[in-house]
C-alpha cells in the first residue's frame, strides 16, 4: 500500500507539471496560432492575415530587415568575440580577471539600457554629439540600422566570447602539439585544428546571439526609429492606438516563431551531426606575448572592454546629473533619485516582488522537472523536458501576446493582473535553472536517495531531505542567472503591464520614450547595481567566472 503511494508522488508531480504546461504554454501557443487565422471583425476563419503580410512590402520589408539586422549582428559578434576568446585563452593578458568580469557584466545587462546609453552618448543631444558639434564636427546618426548594429554587436559578442573560451578550455594542448609535430603551425593550425574543434560551440553561441537579436524589442523601439523590425511591428500592431488588429499581430507573431523554430532546428541538426566529445588532460596554457603583436592584442581587448562597459558608466554618470524640467543642466544632484522614489517607487517594488515570486516558482519547478527528466526517464518526462525548452524559440514580445490572447476572457481573465506577468517571467527564464539543475543532478549518485529510502524515508521525504539539498548549490547558480534576466525583462512585460503592474524595465522604457532621461538613468542605475551585485553573488556561489547561458 505505502509502496503504491510513494510511486504516486512523482506521478502526481508529472501530471501536475504537464497540466501547467498545457495550460500556460501549449494552449496559449495554440490560441496564438489559431488567432492568426481569424478575421478581426467577424471572427471567421480566414487566410487574410497571411496574404496581407506577404503581399505588402511594408510588412515583408520588416521581416527582411529583421533578418538583415540579425545576420549582420551575428557576424559582427562572431568577428569580435572569437578573436577575443582566442587571445584571452592563448596569451597572458594583463588584467585578465577584471576584464572577464567586465565582459560578463556587459553581457548580463539588458539590451535596452545599452541602446539608451548610446543615445545619451551619440544621440541627437548626446554628450559626444554635442561635444563634437561644438568643434564643428557632424557625427553620423545613431538612430536606425547602424545604431542597432552597434548596440547589439557590443552587447552580444560576450556570448560568443564566453562560449568559445569555454570550448577552448576543453582542448588538450596535445592536439595543438600533434598538429605542430605533423608540420603545421601558425594560422594554418588555428584554421585546421583549433577552429574546427570549437565550431559546434560557436554555432550554438551564434544561435543564441541570433535569437536574442531577432527577439529583442527594447533596442529597436528606442533606437530603431524608421528601421522597422518584427518585434516592434508586432508590438505596435498589438497595442497600437491606430487601429491595430490582435489577429494580425498574432499572425506576425506566428511567423516569427516559425522563423526562430526553423533556425533552432537547423542548429540542433548541425550539432547532432557534428558533435564529438573532448576531454582535456592538459588544457592550453596562456603564453606570454610581447612586442608589437602583444601591444595590438592588448589594445584590441581593452578597447572592446571599454566600449562594452561605457553604457553602464554612462547610465550611472547620467543619473547623478542635475536636471531642470527634464533637461540636463550643469552640476550634479540626487534629484533624479528623489523623483524616482516619489513617482516610480511602485515599479521598483513590483520588480522585486514579481521576480522573487517568479524565482521561487522557477526553482521549485526547475528542480522537479530536472528530477523527472534525469531520474524518471520515460516518454512523458522526455516530453516535459522538450516542452520546457520551447521558450527558447518564442520571442519575449510574442510570449506576451500569446498569454494575453489566451487569458483575455473568463474564466481565466488574467490580462492586466500581476499573475500574468509572473507567469510570463517564469516561462521565459526557467531554462537556466532547469539546465543547471539537471547538470548537478547528473553528478549526484542515485544511491544517495536510495540509501535514504532504504533507511525508511518516503519518496518525497527522501527527495527533499537528501537530493534536493545536494542539488541546491548547482541550482543556485542557474537561479541567479534566471534572476538577473528576470529583473531585466522588458520584451514580454511591455506587452502585459498596466499602470499598477509596471516594472522597473518598463518604467525605464517609458521614461526614455518621454525623454525623461534623468529618472530613466536613476532607475537603470538601480537595475544595473542589482545586476552587478547578483553577479558577484553568482561568482561566489558557483566559485567560477564562467557564465554559460
Amino acid at each position, binding site marked *: 500500500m505505502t509502496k503504491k503511494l510513494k510511486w504516486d508522488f512523482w506521478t502526481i508531480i508529472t501530471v501536475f507539471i504537464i497540466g501547467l504546461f498545457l495550460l500556460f504554454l501549449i494552449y496559449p501557443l495554440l490560441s496564438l496560432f489559431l488567432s492568426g487565422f481569424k478575421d478581426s471583425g467577424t471572427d471567421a476563419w480566414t487566410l487574410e492575415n497571411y496574404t496581407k503580410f506577404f503581399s505588402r512590402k511594408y510588412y515583408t520589408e520588416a521581416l527582411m530587415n529583421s533578418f538583415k539586422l540579425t545576420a549582420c549582428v551575428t557576424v559582427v559578434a562572431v568577428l569580435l568575440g572569437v578573436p577575443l576568446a582566442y587571445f584571452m585563452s592563448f596569451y597572458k593578458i594583463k588584467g585578465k580577471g577584471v576584464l572577464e568580469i567586465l565582459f560578463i557584466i556587459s553581457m548580463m545587462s539588458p539590451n535596452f539600457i545599452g541602446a539608451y546609453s548610446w543615445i545619451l552618448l551619440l544621440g541627437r543631444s548626446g554628450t559626444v554629439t554635442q561635444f563634437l558639434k561644438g568643434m564643428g564636427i557632424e557625427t553620423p546618426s545613431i538612430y536606425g540600422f547602424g545604431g542597432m548594429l552597434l548596440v547589439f554587436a557590443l552587447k552580444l559578442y560576450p556570448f560568443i566570447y564566453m562560449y568559445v573560451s569555454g570550448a577552448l578550455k576543453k582542448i*588538450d594542448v596535445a592536439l595543438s*602539439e600533434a*598538429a*605542430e*609535430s*605533423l*608540420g*603545421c603551425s601558425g594560422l594554418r593550425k588555428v584554421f585546421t585544428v583549433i577552429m574546427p*574543434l570549437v565550431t559546434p560551440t560557436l554555432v550554438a553561441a551564434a544561435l543564441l546571439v541570433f535569437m536574442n537579436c531577432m527577439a529583442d524589442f527594447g533596442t529597436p523601439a528606442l533606437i530603431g526609429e524608421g528601421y522597422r523590425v518584427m518585434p516592434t511591428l508586432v508590438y505596435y500592431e498589438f497595442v497600437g492606438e491606430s487601429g491595430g488588429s490582435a489577429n494580425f499581430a498574432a499572425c506576425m507573431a506566428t511567423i516569427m516563431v516559425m522563423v526562430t523554430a526553423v533556425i533552432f532546428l537547423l542548429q540542433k541538426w548541425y550539432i547532432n551531426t557534428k558533435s564529438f566529445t573532448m576531454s582535456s588532460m592538459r588544457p592550453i596554457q596562456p603564453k606570454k606575448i610581447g612586442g608589437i603583436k602583444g601591444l595590438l592584442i592588448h589594445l584590441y581587448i581593452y578597447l572592446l572592454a571599454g566600449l562594452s562597459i561605457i553604457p553602464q558608466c554612462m547610465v550611472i554618470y547620467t543619473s547623478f546629473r542635475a536636471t531642470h524640467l527634464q533637461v540636463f543642466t550643469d552640476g550634479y544632484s540626487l534629484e533624479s533619485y528623489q523623483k524616482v522614489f516619489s513617482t516610480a517607487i511602485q515599479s521598483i517594488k513590483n520588480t522585486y516582488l514579481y521576480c522573487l515570486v517568479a524565482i521561487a516558482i522557477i526553482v521549485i519547478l526547475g528542480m522537479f522537472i530536472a528530477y523527472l527528466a534525469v531520474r524518471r526517464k520515460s516518454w512523458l518526462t522526455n516530453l516535459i523536458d522538450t516542452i520546457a525548452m520551447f521558450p527558447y524559440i518564442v520571442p519575449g514580445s510574442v510570449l506576451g501576446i500569446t498569454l494575453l490572447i489566451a487569458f483575455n476572457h473568463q474564466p481565466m481573465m488574467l490580462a492586466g493582473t500581476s499573475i500574468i506577468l509572473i507567469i510570463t517571467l517564469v516561462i521565459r527564464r526557467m531554462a537556466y535553472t532547469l539546465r543547471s539543475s539537471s547538470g548537478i543532478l547528473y553528478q549526484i549518485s542515485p544511491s544517495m536517495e536510495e540509501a535514504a529510502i532504504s533507511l525508511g524515508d518516503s519518496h518525497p521525504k527522501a527527495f527533499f531531505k537528501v537530493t534536493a539539498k545536494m542539488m541546491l548549490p548547482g541550482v543556485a547558480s542557474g537561479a541567479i542567472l534566471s534572476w538577473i534576466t528576470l529583473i531585466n525583462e522588458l520584451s514580454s512585460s511591455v506587452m502585459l503591464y498596466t499602470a499598477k503592474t509596471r516594472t522597473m524595465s518598463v518604467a525605464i522604457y517609458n521614461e526614455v520614450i518621454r525623454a525623461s532621461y534623468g529618472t530613466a538613468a536613476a532607475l537603470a542605475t538601480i537595475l544595473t547595481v542589482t545586476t552587478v551585485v547578483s553577479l558577484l553573488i553568482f561568482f561566489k556561489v558557483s566559485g567560477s567566472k564562467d557564465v554559460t547561458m
Partner: protein
Amino acid sequence: MSVNINIDHTVKKYGDLTIIPDLSANIKNGEFFTLLGPSGCGKTTLLRMIAGFNSIEGGTISFDDQVINDIPAQKRNIGMVFQSYAIFPHLTVRQNVEYGLKLRKIPKAEMKQRVDEILQVVRIEEYQDRLPDRLSGGQQQRVALARAIVIHPQVLLMDEPLSNLDAKLRIEMRSAIRDVQKQVGITTVYVTHDQEEALAISDRIAVMKLGVIQQIGSPQDIYARPYNAFVSTFIGHSNLFYATVQKTGSQTCLAFRNGYTLEMNNLVDSVINGQQVVVSVRPEEFSLNDNGMECEIINRTFLGKYTNYFLRFGDGVVLDDQPSIEYSQDLGHVDSIFDIGAKIRLRPNPNKINVFSEDMEQSLIRDVKRYD
C-alpha cells in the same frame, strides 16, 4: 630517411629550477631507444626537447649533423605519439592520418596509397571512416601511431603511449608498436615509467633519475649488470646486503655481516682488502643450499610459476629502508613450499650478483659499462 640523434651536454631549466643539468646520449639510426625513470626524472622533458615543444637552455641536440635547437617543432619532421593520443576529434580516422600528408602537399594518388598502406600496417583499415569518438583506446592508439609514421618522419617520439590502456591491451600494443617500428625501421625514442614495458620493447634503455642518465644499455645488461644500486632496485627487485671485501692472495671474497663468506672472481682489480661494499642480490639469484646464509620466512605470496618468500636476516645484515627482502622459488622443480616461520639457508649466485661501492653509485663488477 631515419637519423641518429646526438644529445650533447644538454641543459633544461625552468627559471631558476634546473630539470636536466647536463645530459649527453647518442641514439643510433633505426634504434628503439627508451627513456625510463620514475615520475619527475626529466624523461618527458627530454623527449619534448627533442620534439621541439620545450626550449633547450644549453648544449645541443642534433639529427645526424644538423643541430636542431632553433628549428621549430613543425619543421623538425618528427612523428609524435602522445600520452592522450591527441587524435583530432573532428576528423575521421582516415582524415587524421592524411592530415600531415596534406600539409606536405603529397599528390593525391600517392597519399591514398601511403594511407592505405599504413592503415593496413597498424590494422585499422576497417575503421577508417569513423570518428575517433567511436574507437576504443587501443584503436585510437593505432591511429596515433599511423598518423605519426605515415609522414615518414626522421624520428618517432612516443610519450608514455600505453599508460592509458588496460594491462592486457598494453602487452598487445607494445608488441604491435615494436613490430611496426622494426618494419618501418625508424629511429624511435620512447618514454615510459614501466620497467617491464621498457625491457620488453627496447633495443637500448636509458635509466634516468633527477635529470641524469644513470645508465644506458641493452635490456639484458641493464637488468643483469646495473651500474649502480638505483638502477638495480628500479629495474626489477634487488635485495641489498652490507659486506666487506676480503683479499687473501689471489682469492677475493665477500664477507657478509652475519659471517657468511662468498668467493667472487669477477670484481674489479681496484678493490682493496677491508673495503666496505653493498651487495645486490635479485630474488631469483638465491638458491637453497645447506651452506647458505640462514634466514627466516616471514611471509609468502604464491604466484603460480613461482612463490615469493619474504625473508628476515639477522640484525644489520641488510640495508634498512628496503621495502622487502625476497627470494623467488621456481616451482617447476620443487615438490613443496615452505611455511611461514620456517628457517632456510640461501646461497647467492656469485656469477650473477652485483657489488657496488659503499655509496652505491658505482659497480665493482669487472667490465660493467655505464654508457654502452
